């Protein structure tokens, strides 16, 4: 392996910061939405007899799932895996 290819693994792998930030926002939204209890602690509007308080939280199961999955795809794109190829020589040199 030529020295040009040697990577210092004691650094953070490069990433698309903007995409990572979007993923972070997607993960934060469900947490904020559910921890802001005042926004949904009410009975109306009802849906099929379910108070808003109940069905709103059930709805977030699906929204959160979708957002986490989108965040997963974004993170894969933002920071492709950097294999630790030349790490053995580094380890022995420490």
């Amino acid at each position, binding site marked *: 392996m030529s020295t040009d290819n040697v990577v210092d693994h004691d650094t953070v792998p490069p990433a698309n910061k903007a995409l990572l930030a979007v993923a972070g926002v997607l993960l934060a939204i469900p947490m904020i939405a559910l921890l802001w209890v005042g926004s949904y*602690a009410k009975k109306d509007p009802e849906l099929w007899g379910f108070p808003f308080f109940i069905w709103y939280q*059930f709805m977030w199961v699906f929204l959160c799932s979708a957002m986490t999955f989108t965040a997963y795809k974004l993170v894969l794109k933002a920071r492709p895996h950097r294999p630790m190829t030349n790490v053995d020589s580094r380890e022995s040199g420490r």
Partner: protein
Amino acid sequence: MNALAPTAAHTGVNGVALTVLIVLFVLVTGMGFWATRWRRADSMESLDEWGLGGRRFGTWVTWFLLGGDLYTAYTFVAVPAAMFALGSVSGFFAVPYTIVLYPIIFIFMSRLWSVSHRHGYVTPADFVKGRYGSRGLSLAVSITGILATMPYIALQLIGIQAVLEVAGVGGSNALAKDLPLFIAFALLAAYTYSSGLRAPAVIAFVKDTLIYLVIIVAVIYLPTKVGGWDHIFSAAQHKMAKPSVANPAKPTGAFIPSNQQYWAYATLAFGSALALFMYPHSITATLSSSSRNTIRRNASILPAYSFVLGLLALLGWVAIAAGTKPIGLDGKPNAQLVIPQLFEDKFPSWFAGVAFAAVAIGALVPAAIMSIAAANTFTRNIYRDWIKPDATHAQEAKVGKLVSLLVKAFALVFVLALDKQNAINFQLLGGIWILQTLPAIVVGLYTRWFHKWALLAGWAVGMVYGTIAAYNVINPTTKGHFGGSLAMIPMIGQMGYIAMTALVINLLIATVATVLLKALKVAGGPDETIKGDYFADAGDPRVEKHLAMDAHLTTGAP
């Protein structure tokens, strides 16, 4: 047995249900003992075989084991019981808790997976030792893990007891009442001892089949039987608005949280979510996945489980509409019995028996996994690090087995000593303790800014504060200590989950102490991880520096 039964007719022995329960129970006990032959190893005399099932569990077995962490007596007995007795603030917070759980897993568990993969960490205490070069901090984390697991196991035992009581087993005096529990416990202890992690892995198949069957039938059938969801919600609202028996100035519970309860609801949900994956058993299960991305992918699929959990929680309110009277064999009301009682009242006896078995077996599997994880933690982070560094594999396996018995015995002490009326507190009490390891573990995944002694100081203060605050919560009905998990949040003046207050205090102490220690130039320990470790994936080479000593733990698929 009949002589011991109280006057309330429906709490007598239900012969058919009890027979079905016993048959299924005997079946899984047999499977538990047989499990030692499953994927038989050359020798069971190592921690790797006993405590990690030889690390040969594929995706499916791991999935069932993870299900064991999720569907427990907490889901089946404690959450619906809390909904039945005290309403949404005490019970329904489990839904947002299990929703926000997954973004949290997504964010930090993939990092923990990567660094553990590179360094062969099996427990959170392993990571803390490597990251901070501190055996003391690692000891604190492992003790907390074991301590916090005990009330969680105790919660499982309460689930088993609730089923047995509704089926009519046990008597009115203390000994007869707890005897069936002791027998179930002894069987569990015996096959966990002999088969290790293989036992819950084998039984988990039966457990999940029974649980899904019962949940689907119950959630579809019961609401139509008691007059529809409209009626269920109005009955629940009516009950929660009535004056409380213990304190007539207050309502019985919350139908929808009032604005004084927003902090309580949010901190219970968020605190429980942060706490869950600090437990030894959840971390072991997560680290057993085959790659970094498996965790992140799963995090986006697993919330489906929260939906079913929400429906189960609502069964507590279905029981209100159905007029379920959870009366124990001692003739006193006991909310923990509400779900088994609902099944007994509304279903044919044979199906009630299946439901009882689902709850009882559903409690056995996680109890076994938890006690094994606690035993692994003890063996690896206390026994080998502090007592006998040159322990052989056989010695480690022996210690692990014995500790799994001890952990269960202590869990039994929790069952007998603490107030069982509101069993959900057992899980919340464990959460108060385990959350105090978060700064060392989770913050440590991102930065080593905190000093190891500062983290230890923060942990100690958080533990003491949390325990005292929880001790001071008096149950208004029974006057017992540890009666709840909510206390006034200093500065904010609202009720909140003690674990979160303790965590904030913990972080404050750790921050101040870090600044002081850095000003005094006190050296921190060596860090054996490098930045790249936190982004490693399957296929990356591993650091095998302790190869000679613990090859059996650092190699093999994590």
